[in-house]
């Protein structure tokens, strides 16, 4: 009961640059959040948990993956707290500690596939990204029905010009892209 909990607050502050203690829990971030209605843990509660250091509790929450990163919370915060940055930091902690919930697996896999594609090409390649995402998701869940459903969707999308076989050309300065990823230091 009294065992020391690791103080994640400092880590969140380091990742996000937000001053957590500045938050005075007015609720304006939740009030303006376009996704708050569907969130299991609204932004104000996320901030409170980050303040008290109980970060792993909210790292499990669906809401950090439901966030659109629209930055409305940060823009309107009366105390200039980087709320969206805190959510980003929690996503990172969630991946690092592998604490995201099963429900969020699809979102996490998608985001990873997206970033991998960008890292490789300097921009996204839809076909490569979709294949990567579906393949990795399949190997986590072995959801055959899903593979079949998605597999049948592919030709339809190609027929309507929504997806291209052409792999597209990578950006010229790939070294720059690499530097960006290196600087972020995120394992994908």
């Amino acid at each position, binding site marked *: 009961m009294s065992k020391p909990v690791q103080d994640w607050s400092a880590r969140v502050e380091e990742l996000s640059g937000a001053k957590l*203690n500045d938050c005075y829990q007015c609720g304006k971030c939740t009030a303006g959040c376009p996704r708050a209605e569907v969130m299991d843990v609204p932004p104000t*509660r996320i901030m409170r*948990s980050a303040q*008290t250091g109980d970060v792993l509790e909210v790292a499990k929450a669906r809401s950090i993956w439901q966030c659109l990163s629209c930055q409305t919370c940060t823009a309107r915060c009366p105390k200039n707290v980087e709320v969206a940055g805190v959510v980003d930091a929690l996503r990172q902690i969630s991946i690092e500690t592998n604490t995201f919930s099963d429900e969020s697996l699809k979102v996490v896999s998608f985001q990873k596939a997206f970033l991998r594609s960008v890292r490789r090409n300097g921009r996204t390649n839809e076909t490569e990204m979709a294949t990567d995402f579906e393949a990795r998701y399949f190997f986590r869940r072995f959801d055959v029905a899903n593979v079949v459903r998605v597999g049948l969707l592919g030709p339809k999308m190609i027929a309507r010009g929504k997806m291209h076989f052409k792999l597209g050309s990578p950006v010229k300065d790939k070294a720059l892209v690499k530097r960006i990823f290196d600087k972020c230091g995120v394992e994908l």
Partner: protein
Amino acid sequence: MAKIGVFTCWCGENIARNVDVDKVSEAIAKLPGVGCSMNYKYMCSEPGQSLIATKIRELGLTGVVVASCSPHMHLKTFRKTCELAGINPYLIEMANIREQCSWVHSDKEVATAKAIELIGMAVEKVRRNHALQPIRVPVTKRALVIGAGVAGIQAALDVASGGVEVVLVEREPSVGGKMAGLSETFPTLDCSQCILTPRMVEVGQHPNIKLMTYSEVEKVDGYVGNFKVTIRQKARYVDIAKCTGCGSCWNACPKKNKIPNSFDYNLGNRGAIYIPFPQAVPARPTIDPDNCMRLQSMKNGKELCGICAKKCQTNAINFHDEEKFVEVEVGAIIVATGYQLYSIKKEQENPRIKGYAEYGYGKYPDVVDSLQFERIISASGPTGGEPKRPSDGKTPKSVVFIQCVGSRDNAKGITYCSKICCMYTAKHTMLFKHKVHDGTASVFYMDIRSGGKMYDEFVRRAIEQDGAKYYRGRVSKIEQVMVDGERKYRCYGADTLKGTPVVVDADMVVLAGAIMPSSGVTQLAQKLSVGYNEYGFLSESHPKLRPVETNAAGVFVCGACQGPKDIPETVAQASAAAGKALIMLSQPELTREPEIATIDEKLCAACGACVKACPYQAISIEEIRDRKGNFIKKTSRVNPGLCMGCGTCVAVCPSKSADLIGFTDDQVYAQIESLADVF
């Protein structure tokens, strides 16, 4: 022949919306003796008042009725109008057709009929009014200030600097009150001693201030401008005129550092002869008779110890000292008796108030109240400002602060907010963090109430810069536990912002107990005929417009005895009370409302019912004698200086010999009869 003018006010829409004012004016004009009846949109405005004045002069009115709002609102206004127009100001009556009519009825027809009845009653009363003259009483140009904390000190200095003599009475051996024991003060964190002690020295030296420490008000006689106050000077056993404050006695006392010092809330010790703290004013010791071996042995006819007297170079110690009664005459009294903290522990003196068994205060040595924590963290305190917990003297690393202990807790019997706890708790967390850098200060609060200049910024600073951890929620209970051989206090709280329980293991717990008026304040209030509320806070005359006056004329209040308040507010209120007292004492004589009780001495049987009933002790039994001194009869007699015109004596008098000038039975019956005509 009466010629009464009736002026009905619309009060903008307030009255006119629900009362047909034209119909009222018409109906009233028909009453016998009414010389004119008119209405106007705002009777209290300049044109409204000049309308009344013009009619008084033109028609030679003998009485005026203004039908408008409550007399509390504008009676004085219209009395002045009458006076300026040349008739006696007591020849005006107000009919309240706003609060008692238009505001409380929705049916216009009914409200109009009621307004006519109310005005008709006022017409019948004013017909029987007499010209009255205000009562004039002389003034003693001296003030008494009761209590020498920061409020009393400020009030005394202000009155004294205004050129009026002050008698400053303090029941403790030194002036300074609660503030002298504080560490640093919000929102500037300047040291309490540094800002207060110069003022303490000043009251000790001011030529217009007579300081009476270790003294209490015993009896109050007289009335506004002419109080006779008996002050009991407790036996100090030290002649403060002879004593030089050298300290030989208290350093030699065999009981030195053996008796808990109440100034340190028993966290530090003193001797049997002691000064409560080094900066005390007067810097003269006092002997505690319960702990002095000499004084105890004298009860058995022996003379033990007496070392202090032997050490004293000036023969200032007198073991045969006795309490003395001193009578002072004063014109005004300022009450500044301050506060004490609600006593938190399970057992309470007041049966209406319950304690907190769940917090273990009084049982666990390291669960302290906020005034104790002030001493623990104060540079002048028993630990010299080192934060050490009382049980084992270790430096606490984790301190839990709990706000609203008592305050806003209906189940414990206290409903009000103590107002200063949010601020001083933020201060406590800062002072603690400044001294224990790796420490944790956790605060459990319900709301943060930090209204005031630089106040909210101060609380935010505690949270944002000093890293105090604030949890919104109360603590349910505190348990003493052993964690790795360390004594800890486990606080079971909640974080309602997150919706989870919170458990904190603390080395020390500080409880921000509710502010209560000092002990004995209700007895003092009774001596002064000042009202007080259910908790004993003294009642001001009007919560907004007369905040330092009381309903007892000539008695003023300031500081926390009137309600919880912080130092800046207390000082401001003390200066306000001093200002009001000076205004009163600067008059050559005082005028009082003439609407007081009178006794028909021919009828009075001197039964004494009125004497017992009078809440102001204004009636006494006197003897009537003829010129030769032969006894004729006894009678009750009203002291016009004391009578407040409440009418209680009139109600209790069995012989109907008591009457209230301006509200005579004759007038009241006439009003009722006028109503009876309607039915």
